[in-house]
C-alpha cells in the first residue's frame, strides 16, 4: 500500500490523543469550544479510518501495512481496518450526542478529554502489531473505563461499580500478560506478524515441557472472557448503568466486545488449540443462556439491557468456539451498532413513553370502558402454523446458505450456527402465531417476507465479510476444522438439543394448562419458587463475590492491626 496509508496508521490514534490534550487547554473557561475541538478531531479520525478502508479495499488481499510509532508497531490488515472504522464511527456518534447530553454536567471538558483518550486507546489496541503495544492499550482501556464510568463523583454507587469493572478487567489483563510472555519466550519475537509466521512454521514449541501454543491460547481466551463479561466474570456489566449514557453506549458498542477481537487477532494461535475453542463454545453457550434468562427475569430495565449485552457476548464467544471467527466480528459490529442506538435512544423512549405508553389496548378494557366492539381474532390452523414454524426457517436458512457456499454444511460450526438460526426463526414464528390478530394470514405473510429478507441479506453480507476478513481459504477451513469434534458425538449432541428445545417449546405452549408453578404448599411449588429466587437474585454470584471480598478485607484489617501497620 502507499506511503500515505502508513502515515494514516500513525495519525489514527494520535489525533484523538492530541485532542485530549488540546481540547482542555483551548477550552479552559469555554466549554463549548472544547467540545467543538473534540468533535472535529473525532470526525477527522473517522475520515482517516474510512480513507484507510478505501485503501485496503483497493489493495491486493494479502497486502498488510506496518508502521512504527516510537517503540510501538502498528498494523493495518482487514481486521484492524474493520474495527477502526467501527470504533471511530461509534466514537463520533457518541461525541456528537454528548455535546448536548452532557452540557449541564460540571466536568464537561474533562469528559470530552477522557472520551478522546478512550478512543485513542481503543484504536491503538485494534491496530497494535506487537505484544507490548497491545498490552498497554488493553490495560489502559480498563483504567480509562473506570474514570468514565465513575464520572459522577457525587454518587458512591458509580464509584463502587466502576471498581468492579476495573477489578474484573485487571483479572483479565493478567492472563494476557501471561500469554504475551509465553509467546515471546517461546517464539523469540513480540511482533505479531512474525510471531504468527513462526507459529505456523512450528506450532509445537515447548517451554519446560509444556506446549506453548495451547497454554497461550487458554490464557488469551481467559482474557477475552473477562473483557466480554462471560459467566462468572460478568457481574460488573449489569451494574455499570450508573455511568453517563454516552459511556454506556461506547462501552456496550466498542469495549465489551474486545474479547471477539482478541480471538480474531490471535486466530493463528487458536487454530492450533482445538480444546480451547471447545471451552470457548461451552463458556459462550452458558453465558448466552444465563445472560438471556437473567435479562428476562429482571425488573430493572437498565440491568435487563446489561444482561442482554451479556447474552450477546456469549453468542459472540460461542461463534468463536465454533470456528466462525469472522461471524463473531460481524456480530460485534452489528451488536455495537444496535446497542449504541438503543442506549442513545433510551432517553427519547422514556420521554415518549411518559406521554404514550405504547401498550396496545386490552380487549376487555376496550369493550367495557371504551365501549368499542370486540376485535374478531383469527388464528392460522395449528397444524399449518406448526409446519410453518418448524419448516420455513430451516428451508430459508438452508437454501440461502447452500446457494452462497456449497461446502457450508460440511463444517460442524456452520451446522450449529444454522441450528441456532433455525431455533431463533422458529421461536419468532411461534411468537407471531400466538399474537391475537384480526388478519392472521397477513401478519404471517409479512413476517415470512421480513424473515426471508433478513436471512438472505445476512447470509450474503456474512459470507462477503468472511471473505474480506479471512481472504486465505486455507486458514478459514483450518479454524473450522480445529473447532470440530467427533462426528458421532456431534450428531448425538444435535439430536439431544433438538429434543430439549422441542420439549421446552411444548412446555411453553402448554404452560398455563400444565400449571408450571405447581399448587401452593406442594414440593414442586417450593422448587419452582426457589428457582425463581435463584434467577431473580442472579444466581447469587455478585453476592458471593461481595461476601468473599468483605471477608478478605476484614482479615487484612486484623493482620494489619496485629502487625502494627508496619
Amino acid at each position, binding site marked *: 500500500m502507499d506511503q500515505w496509508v502508513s502515515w494514516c496508521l500513525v495519525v489514527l490514534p494520535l489525533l484523538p490523543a492530541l485532542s485530549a490534550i488540546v481540547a482542555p487547554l483551548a477550552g479552559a473557561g469555554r466549554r463549548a469550544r472544547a467540545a467543538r475541538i473534540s468533535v472535529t478531531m473525532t470526525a477527522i479520525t473517522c475520515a482517516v479510518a474510512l480513507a484507510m478502508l478505501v485503501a485496503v479495499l483497493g489493495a491486493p488481499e494479502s497486502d498488510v501495512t506496518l508502521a512504527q510509532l516510537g*517503540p510501538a508497531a502498528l498494523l493495518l490488515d482487514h481486521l484492524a481496518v474493520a474495527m477502526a472504522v467501527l470504533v471511530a464511527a461509534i466514537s463520533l456518534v457518541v461525541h456528537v450526542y454528548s455535546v448536548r447530553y452532557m452540557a449541564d454536567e460540571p466536568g464537561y471538558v474533562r469528559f470530552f478529554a477522557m472520551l478522546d483518550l478512550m478512543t485513542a486507546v481503543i484504536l491503538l489496541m485494534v491496530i497494535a502489531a506487537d505484544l*507490548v503495544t497491545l498490552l498497554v492499550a488493553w490495560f*489502559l482501556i480498563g483504567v480509562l473505563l473506570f474514570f468514565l464510568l465513575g464520572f459522577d463523583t*457525587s454518587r458512591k454507587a458509580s464509584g463502587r461499580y466502576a471498581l468492579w469493572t476495573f477489578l474484573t478487567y*485487571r483479572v483479565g489483563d493478567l492472563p494476557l500478560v501471561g500469554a504475551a510472555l509465553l509467546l515471546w519466550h517461546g517464539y523469540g519475537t513480540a511482533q505479531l506478524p512474525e510471531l504468527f509466521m513462526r507459529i505456523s512454521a512450528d506450532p509445537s514449541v515447548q517451554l519446560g515441557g509444556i506446549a506453548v501454543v495451547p497454554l497461550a491460547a487458554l490464557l488469551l481466551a481467559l482474557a477475552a472472557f473477562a473483557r466480554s463479561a462471560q459467566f462468572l466474570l460478568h457481574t460488573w456489566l449489569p451494574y455499570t448503568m450508573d455511568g453517563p449514557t454516552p459511556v454506556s453506549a461506547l462501552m456496550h458498542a466498542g469495549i465489551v466486545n474486545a474479547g471477539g477481537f482478541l480471538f480474531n487477532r490471535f486466530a493463528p494461535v487458536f487454530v492450533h488449540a482445538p480444546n480451547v475453542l471447545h471451552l470457548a463454545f461451552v463458556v459462550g453457550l452458558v453465558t448466552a443462556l444465563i445472560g438471556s434468562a437473567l435479562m428476562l427475569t429482571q425488573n430493572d430495565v437498565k440491568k435487563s439491557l446489561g444482561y442482554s449485552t451479556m447474552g450477546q457476548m456469549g453468542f459472540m464467544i460461542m461463534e468463536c468456539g465454533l470456528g466462525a471467527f469472522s461471524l463473531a466480528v460481524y456480530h460485534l459490529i452489528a451488536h455495537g451498532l444496535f446497542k449504541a442506538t438503543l442506549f442513545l435512544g433510551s432517553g427519547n423512549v422514556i420521554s415518549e413513553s411518559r406521554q404514550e405508553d405504547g401498550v396496545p389496548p386490552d380487549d376487555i378494557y376496550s369493550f367495557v370502558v371504551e365501549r368499542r366492539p370486540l376485535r374478531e381474532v383469527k388464528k392460522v390452523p395449528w397444524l399449518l402454523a406448526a409446519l410453518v414454524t418448524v419448516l420455513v426457517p430451516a428451508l430459508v436458512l438452508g437454501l440461502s446458505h447452500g446457494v452462497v457456499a456449497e461446502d457450508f454444511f460440511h463444517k460442524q460450526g456452520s451446522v450449529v450456527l444454522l441450528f441456532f438460526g433455525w431455533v431463533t426463526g422458529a421461536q419468532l414464528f411461534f411468537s407471531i402465531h400466538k399474537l391475537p390478530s384480526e388478519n392472521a394470514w397477513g401478519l404471517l405473510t409479512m413476517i415470512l417476507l421480513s424473515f426471508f429478507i433478513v436471512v438472505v441479506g445476512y447470509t450474503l453480507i456474512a459470507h462477503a465479510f468472511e471473505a474480506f476478513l479471512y481472504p486465505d481459504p486455507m486458514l478459514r477451513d483450518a479454524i473450522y476444522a480445529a473447532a470440530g469434534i467427533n462426528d458421532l458425538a456431534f450428531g448425538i449432541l444435535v439430536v439431544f438439543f433438538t429434543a430439549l428445545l422441542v420439549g421446552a417449546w411444548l412446555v411453553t405452549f402448554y404452560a398455563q394448562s400444565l400449571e408450571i408453578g405447581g399448587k401452593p404448599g406442594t414440593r414442586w411449588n417450593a422448587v419452582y419458587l426457589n428457582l425463581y429466587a435463584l434467577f431473580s437474585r442472579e444466581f447469587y454470584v455478585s453476592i458471593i463475590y461481595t461476601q468473599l471480598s468483605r471477608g478478605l478485607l476484614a482479615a487484612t484489617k486484623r493482620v494489619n492491626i496485629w502487625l502494627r501497620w508496619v
Partner: protein
Amino acid sequence: MIALLLALILLPLFPLSMLFNAGLQALPVWLRAPVLVAFPIAGVLLLDRAAAPPAQYIAPLQLLAAFTALLYAWRLLAVQELFIWARLQATSAWPLVWLAWLHGLHGKALVFVALAVTIPAALLMVLGSSLSQRLGGAYLGLRGRIGPAFPRLTCALVLTLLAALAAPPFPGFFAMFAVLQQIPASLAAVVLAVWLLWSWAAAILWQHGLFGKEWPRPAGTVDLSLSAGLLLMLVAVAAVLGSIGGWSWWMH
C-alpha cells in the same frame, strides 16, 4: 556475603521489612521520601555488586521474597492512610527486585526496576504531607471526596497512584514486564497476583478520595499551586517518555 546481608537490610524482606517500616514511620515527614528512595537504591547497588548467593540459599530467598511481596500487597487493601500505603506498597515492590536479581537481572536494568517501583511511593509520601497540611492527616475516605476542594492535588494523587500500581505508560509497567521476563512461570504467577492486589488497593484508595459527599475545604487552605502541579506533571511526562525511550532501546 556481607554485601548481600547489607542489601537485605537496605532492600528489606520480611521480617526485616517490619523494622524498616517502623523506622520510616518514626522519621519526620520531610525525611521519609528521601529515605524511601535512598535506602533501596543503595541496596540495589550493593546487590548488583554482590556475588550470587550459595545455591542452597536461592530457593529460601525466592520463597521469602514471594511471601513478602504477597503479604504486603494484600495488607495494602485495608489501608486508607497515604503514608502507610506508600511504604507498604514500596515494601511489597522491593522483593520483586530481589526475584529479578536472583534470576540474572543486573546493571542499569536492575536499578531502573528499583527506581520505577520506588519513586511513585516516594511521591505519594510527598503528596501525603501536602494532604496532611491541608486536612490535618493523610487519611482518605473519612468524610468524603476531596476533588472539588483540591482538584490539582487530587489529580496528582490519582496519577501517582496509577504510577504506583504500574499502569502503562508509567515506568512501573515496563519494570514489571522486565521482572516478568526474567523469572520462571511459578514466580510469574506470584508477581501477577501482587500486581492485581496493587491495582485493587490503589483503586480502593482513590475511590475513597474521589467519590461521595463533598469534603469542605478547611478554612485557610488552598489547592496545590499551579507551579507545583506543573512540576509534578513534568516529572510524570519525563518518567513516561524516559521509560518508553528506555523500552524502545531495550527492544532493539
